[in-house]
């Protein structure tokens, strides 16, 4: 079932969009909630709102899921990364790690090319390749400079762009 977000949900979503530097991009655009076992956030043009009453299999683009906080989907991460307002919640990995992330593997400290010193432990981050394209979503295992330590997994990969192929196949 699709519905408009409640006020509390809107607040959580807007906070998340702000966090990912994508608030401006989404300003004035329609976000709808799809609620089953989980709460999915979908971006769609206003014209589709009326169709959501027909109980579609899917309407618009799933940009993330609302749990205790908003967790972006890969499609959401891609849109956020394209909004060109990168901030500390994005990390960049090297080419070798890019291949591994696309197979769902976690990220070793030495393969992180750029990460903010101010990132905390257990933070959600969008993983970018050297071209600044979203390749995955991760969670930090360490804070600040410790993210770059060699020989250890420092970011857990939660989802990745290779998922489309693995799931589809």
């Amino acid at each position, binding site marked *: 079932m699709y519905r408009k977000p409640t006020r509390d949900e809107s607040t959580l979503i807007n906070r998340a969009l702000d966090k990912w530097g994508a608030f401006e991009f989404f300003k004035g655009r329609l976000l709808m909630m799809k609620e089953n076992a989980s709460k999915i956030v*979908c*971006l*769609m*043009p206003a*014209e*589709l709102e009326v*169709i*959501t009453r*027909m109980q*579609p*299999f*899917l*309407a*618009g*683009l*799933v940009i993330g899921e609302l749990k205790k906080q908003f967790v972006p*989907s*890969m*499609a959401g991460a*891609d*849109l956020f990364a394209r909004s060109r307002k990168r901030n500390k919640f994005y990390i960049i990995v090297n080419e070798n790690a*890019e291949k591994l992330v*696309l197979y769902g593997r976690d990220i070793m400290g030495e393969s992180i090319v750029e990460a903010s010193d101010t990132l905390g432990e257990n933070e959600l981050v969008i993983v970018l*390749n050297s071209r600044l*394209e979203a*390749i995955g979503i991760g969670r930090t295992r360490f804070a600040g400079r410790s993210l770059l330590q060699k020989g250890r997994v420092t970011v857990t990969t939660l989802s990745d*762009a*290779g998922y*489309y*192929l693995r*799931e*589809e196949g």
Partner: protein
Amino acid sequence: MTLIFSESVESVDLAARYGYDRWLVGRFLEYVPGVEDFLEKMERPPTQYIRVNTLKTSRKELETRLSSKGFELKRTSIPEVLAVEKAPIATGATNEYLFGHYYIQDLSSCMAVDALDISKDQAVLDVAAAPGGKTTFIAQKMENTGSIIALEPNERRARAMSFNLARCGVYNACILRRDGMHAEKLQMKFDRVLLDAPCSCEGVIAKDATRKTSHTPQDVDYCAARQDKLIEAAAMMVKSGGILVYSTCSFAPEENEIVVDRLLQKLGNVAVEPLKYGSSGLTRFGDMKFDNQLMNTRRLYPHVHDTTGFFIAKLRVS
């Protein structure tokens, strides 16, 4: 009823040489120009095409990136579509594919979308839409504005389609699990309707050689009966002045010209508009003669147009 022609020395010889059922080659001799060249072409893998997803990248950027990986690409008559002349790795295994920068899609299929003459902010109905190749092309032509309703009754196919829409960054589409035969239940009218009808797939024998002998006249009959119902249902969904594009990947006139001809006879408010690609549709088959407008429909032949076998009709509903 699928027309079967008397066997000739030529049909028997060609059927034996290329491993087809005789009835099928006998029919090809009636509606495929240069049948031997055609049968020869069907022995080779078809040219692969990719369609640039302009929602995520530009043609130039994609050409540069894939060229740096050793791909050789050639531009085609549709600006967004590139022919893959050399692929050092599988075309579906690049990062650019994963990121949704392109979609593997035959040129003929893109021509069907091109025939819709889509512009931004329109309402579009895509009947029998999965796996979503045409839907994603429509979305990029609309720059993610307006609305696309994609009908796909099968859950597994709808799910596969949802992955393709997400990969390509499409957000102006929705998937309804409905059969196109009952499209009228939507109680809506659309500026553009695309019906790429389920068909007997005669045009894709190069991809699936088992069709040389597994294909039967009953398949054609079955598909044609469904197509008659689908095209009528689809035509009823078009706003006055809007366009319905009907396409199949079959050569069989029973699934193409005859279906369109029946629609023209049944509804008085449909006209066939000309298209810029392909060869003219048939205006006669066996002892049947069709409306002259059928000349405006288009047939795409693998050995002539280097696409999969395809049929496209652009119909204006007034």
